[in-house]
């Protein structure tokens, strides 16, 4: 709870820095407050308090995800230094980032449908603005529009689902809904089933799973690269945290009925995302499709819905987000020329950092001793425990396709540069971002229990 209050106050402070002229220090304030909020979340560990008349519940699940969001934001700051250069807009961007973080924390801790709605809206409305934050570029404006329209549309679906659930059960509280569904399990009204379908549709839109993924590649491509990195890591993690929390605490009793929907969506997403990524020549777009494909694996963890899927999801999200932040550092430095062949000669100039990026790529592809492998391993383990055998086979095939295009990145980095090509060069912050993400990837790969065993 203290974490949430700190982050919300940070957003207001960032806005006030515009009024009271302490804009120069806002980055320091931001880092201090986010670090402080992380500390507060760690201090609350092991407690499970409910606040605001059972509107939010800060259990270990909520705290673990809050810490994940905050730590990822700190790493993200390293790669987005130039994004905050402009004096005029710096305070706005920090305010929007803080507000969306507050939304993310609400999404990991809600215990009431109305908080779920408010969290998802705080998160998305800030993200719409961030997507369009590069005002000189028409691509950014278009990305914002293409993010906004499906986002608002899917909000309608989520709300309709909530209304039907409320109509059937007469409560917004997750545990009351769950109790009602357990009590009336033998003859559930159709309204509950319809509500679940609406909720799933809305959430699949939000996490950009196929067949509702059409908006994602364009939005990821058009937004400023730091914002893309933010969207594909923290916002995605928050959406999944909410997805799992909602379904495990309300509808786990009727899991037989809705898991097939999720499993089918997961299978299409994994195969479709990976195959489309193979055909991309633009690194940023390739990462967008790879992010869609990773949603598929995560959906599998949600569909498995057993003891193992909670740690599997947390670990997968941590491993994927860390590696992805490292990759986006590279994309950010490529500027507007994000073609894969612009990477040629990179390894020749920066052999050490090219090796680190290779490490990150291998982790995303799921090669054994790295974090990404254990993420996939835990997801598959929890799916098999729930007897989802064929989806795991599909997932393995999809990962094999994935390996191909991840190796294209490595291949391009290590091939010889064209004669007069401009080779990408890294700044000090970029180097530290890549170093930190690579070290975390190695650490999580060597000792996966660090994260997997805590919840």
């Amino acid at each position, binding site marked *: 709870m203290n974490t949430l209050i700190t982050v919300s106050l940070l957003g*207001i402070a960032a*806005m*006030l820095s*515009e009024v009271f002229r302490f804009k120069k220090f806002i980055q320091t304030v931001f880092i201090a407050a986010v670090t402080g909020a992380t500390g507060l979340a760690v201090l609350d560990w092991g407690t499970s308090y409910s606040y605001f008349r059972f509107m939010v519940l800060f259990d270990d699940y909520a705290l673990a995800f809050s810490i994940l969001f905050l730590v990822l934001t700190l790493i993200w700051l390293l790669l987005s230094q130039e994004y905050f250069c402009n004096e005029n807009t710096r305070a*706005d961007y920090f305010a929007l980032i803080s507000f969306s973080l507050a939304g993310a924390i609400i999404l990991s801790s809600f215990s009431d449908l109305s908080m779920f709605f408010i969290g998802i809206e705080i998160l998305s409305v800030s993200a719409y603005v961030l997507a369009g934050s590069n005002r000189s570029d028409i691509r950014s404006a278009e990305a914002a529009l293409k993010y906004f329209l499906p986002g608002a549309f899917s909000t309608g679906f989520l709300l309709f689902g909530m209304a039907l659930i409320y109509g059937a059960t007469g409560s917004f509280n997750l545990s009351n809904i769950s109790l009602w569904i357990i009590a009336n399990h033998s003859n559930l009204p159709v309204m509950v089933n319809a509500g679940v379908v609406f909720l799933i549709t809305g959430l699949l839109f939000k996490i950009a799973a196929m067949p509702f993924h059409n908006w994602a590649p364009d939005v990821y491509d058009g937004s400023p690269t730091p914002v893309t990195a933010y969207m594909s890591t923290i916002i995605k993690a928050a959406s999944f945290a909410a997805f799992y929390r909602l379904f495990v605490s309300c509808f786990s009793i009727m899991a037989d009925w809705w898991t097939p929907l999720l499993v089918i969506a997961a299978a299409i997403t994994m195969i479709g995302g990976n195959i489309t990524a193979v055909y991309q020549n633009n690194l940023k777009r390739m990462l967008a499709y790879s992010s869609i494909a990773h949603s598929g694996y995560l959906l599998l963890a949600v569909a498995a819905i057993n003891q193992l899927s909670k740690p599997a999801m947390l670990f997968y999200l941590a491993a994927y987000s860390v590696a992805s932040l490292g990759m986006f550092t590279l994309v950010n430095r490529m500027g507007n020329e994000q073609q894969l062949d612009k990477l040629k000669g990179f390894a020749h100039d920066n052999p050490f950092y090219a090796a680190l990026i290779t490490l990150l790529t291998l982790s995303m592809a799921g090669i054994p001793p790295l974090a990404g492998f254990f993420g996939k391993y835990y997801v598959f383990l929890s799916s098999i425990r729930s007897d989802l055998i064929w989806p795991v086979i599909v997932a393995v095939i999809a990962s094999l396709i994935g390996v191909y295009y991840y190796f294209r990145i490595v291949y391009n980095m290590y091939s010889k540069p064209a004669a007069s090509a401009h080779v990408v060069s890294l700044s000090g912050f970029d180097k530290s971002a890549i170093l930190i993400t690579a070290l975390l990837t190695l650490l999580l790969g060597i000792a996966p229990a660090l994260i997997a065993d805590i919840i």
Partner: protein
Amino acid sequence: MGESAILVLIISAVVFSAGGILAGKLLVKSKPSKVKSEAYECGVQTIGKSWVQFNVGYYLFALIFLIFDVELVFLYPWAVAAKQLGWVALIEVIIFLFILFLGFLYAHKKGALRWM
């Protein structure tokens, strides 16, 4: 009473409005002329097209108005039960308005309220 009343209301509304138009069509001889189609009594002929673009400044004001206006909907439930809720709720409402005020300060500082 009940549903039949609504039915009677709907039917009489349709008959009354459609009947007027129909009677006009049937009884009046149509003889259009330029003078008849002019705007009269409450307007003058427009100069140029009537589809004009308004200054974007209006639009900015409208957006800010919209946000601050709609936030006030939260005050209605409080106002209805203000007496029962007592001092604590009053303080909470003041905090809420204070945060809105901070937002207003921010909008002012960003120049959103300056006429362009």
